[in-house]
Structure formats: structure tokens, C-alpha cells
């Protein structure tokens, strides 16, 4: 699930998420249309929603970078090792 920016092995592992607590359904889908659908082969047909606590519970954290839209954040803190291939890392 986590990936590196620009597929650069030196970049950190992160998972892109949208902080949606204060947003309506319509607002979330508008963000999706503007920042996901335009770049994907087909529009999104669904989304997953979860509380931030599930991220903190497993000792991960958030970097609320606000880019490319204010509600954007990355889940960070994934286990990483420069010597381990990424396909193995994702199951740590």
C-alpha cells in the first residue's frame, strides 16, 4: 500500500489520503474528480473511509502536507530498509 514518490528508492514510503472529517460526501467526490479522476484511466467508483486512530494504533503517523489540496496528507512511518526490495517491505 505505501509507495515512494517518483518510484525513487531513496524517497520515503507514504500513502496518500484525504482528511475528510469536515467534508461532505459531495466535497470529497469533488476533490476526487479534480485530483484523481483527471489523471486515472477511469473515474473512481468507490472510496474507503477510516478513523485516524487505526493509523496511530499501529505506530504510523500523518504528514499533513496540504498538497495538492488543503485536506491532503500522507500516512508515514512505514518500516523501511534500503537493502530490502519494496515487494518484500510491503508485508512488514
Amino acid at each position: 500500500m505505501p509507495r515512494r514518490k517518483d518510484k525513487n528508492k531513496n524517497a520515503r514510503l507514504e500513502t496518500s489520503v484525504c482528511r475528510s472529517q469536515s467534508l461532505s460526501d459531495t466535497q470529497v467526490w469533488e476533490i476526487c474528480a479534480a485530483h484523481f479522476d483527471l489523471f486515472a484511466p477511469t473515474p473512481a467508483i468507490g472510496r474507503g473511509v477510516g478513523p485516524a486512530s487505526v493509523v496511530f494504533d499501529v505506530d504510523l503517523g500523518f504528514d499533513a502536507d496540504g498538497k495538492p489540496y488543503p485536506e491532503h496528507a500522507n500516512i508515514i512511518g512505514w518500516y523501511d530498509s534500503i537493502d530490502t526490495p519494496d515487494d518484500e517491505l510491503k508485508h512488514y
Partner: protein
Amino acid sequence: MSSAIAIRGSGLAWDVDYQPVTDSSREIQRTWAQKRNYLQGSASDWLPLLEAAIRSIKDDCTIADWDGSGAIPVSIQTIGLTAKIVETLFTMLPRDTPAPDLIPEAEGEICISWSVDAGRLFSLSVGAHGKINFAGQLGKEGGIHAWQPIDATSRSTLEESLQDITRYVEKLYASTKARRAA
């Protein structure tokens, strides 16, 4: 060829001690296991569902950037290997094992995942690199993460490669069965 079957309970079952020796008896045992697990129209009837999921991944995820975030295409080899693994696991797992989810991954792999609850889940990733990466939380038995080579040159070698995976998935559902039985 010699094969042993025993009448047990309401139907036919392989003798638990019987180990097929010849290719033909192995094939018969596999067919038997598949038919045993294929309870048409029931919750155990998940092989056709997964075949449909694999077709869907083939339709949607074999092009570059299929997720809009730079995903690597899922190769035809990976799709074919996943189909073989799913079919083999179907015959190896106990027949009341629920269907796994099949999830295409951005690295061009396919994840096969079982989830009971937050503390009990198991997933493995299949790619075109000759190995499977897997991880699981098995409740009180703790967690596991590892990788292992996979040999899909024949059905027998694939079954050997998947022995550990089968054991982990069985452990995943062991306590559920115990609760049901109590």
C-alpha cells in the same frame, strides 16, 4: 494404479492416510479435493467468484498507470500464476474456508488476502519474480512475515510451495471453528 477411498459418514472421503504415488492417482485426488470443495451455490463456492475477479484485474490493470498514480501494469504472467495459485489453494484448504479478496497492487502484483478481524488476517502477494511475499496476524499465535520461492512448473511443485501458506490460512480460521464447535 491403486487408490483408496473409504465410506465415512454421509459420503465418500479419501482415506486420510492415503498418499497418492502415481501422477494419475494424484490427479484423481486433486479432482476429488476440488469437487469436495466446490459446493455449488453455497458460501464455499468461491472459485468462480475469484475467476471473475481475475478477469476483472486482467481487463483493468494490465496497462501502465492503471490507478492514475503511476502503477506498474499487472503482467499476464502474474495473472496466470495467481489463477494457478488460487485454484491450487482452493483444493488444499479446508472446504469451509471463506473466499479471499483479490487486490491488484501498484507494484504490478496481485494480493490474495483473508481477513477475519483486526487481529487475524493473512495476505500474500504474487508477482512475476518467482517468489511470494506474505504476512499475517494470527491472533494469539502472533504475526508472521516472510517470503519464499514459488515453483509453478507443475501442480505438484506448486502444491509443495503452498504448504506453509495453507497452514497459516488454516490457523487463521482455527479459533473461529473452535468457537463454532463449542
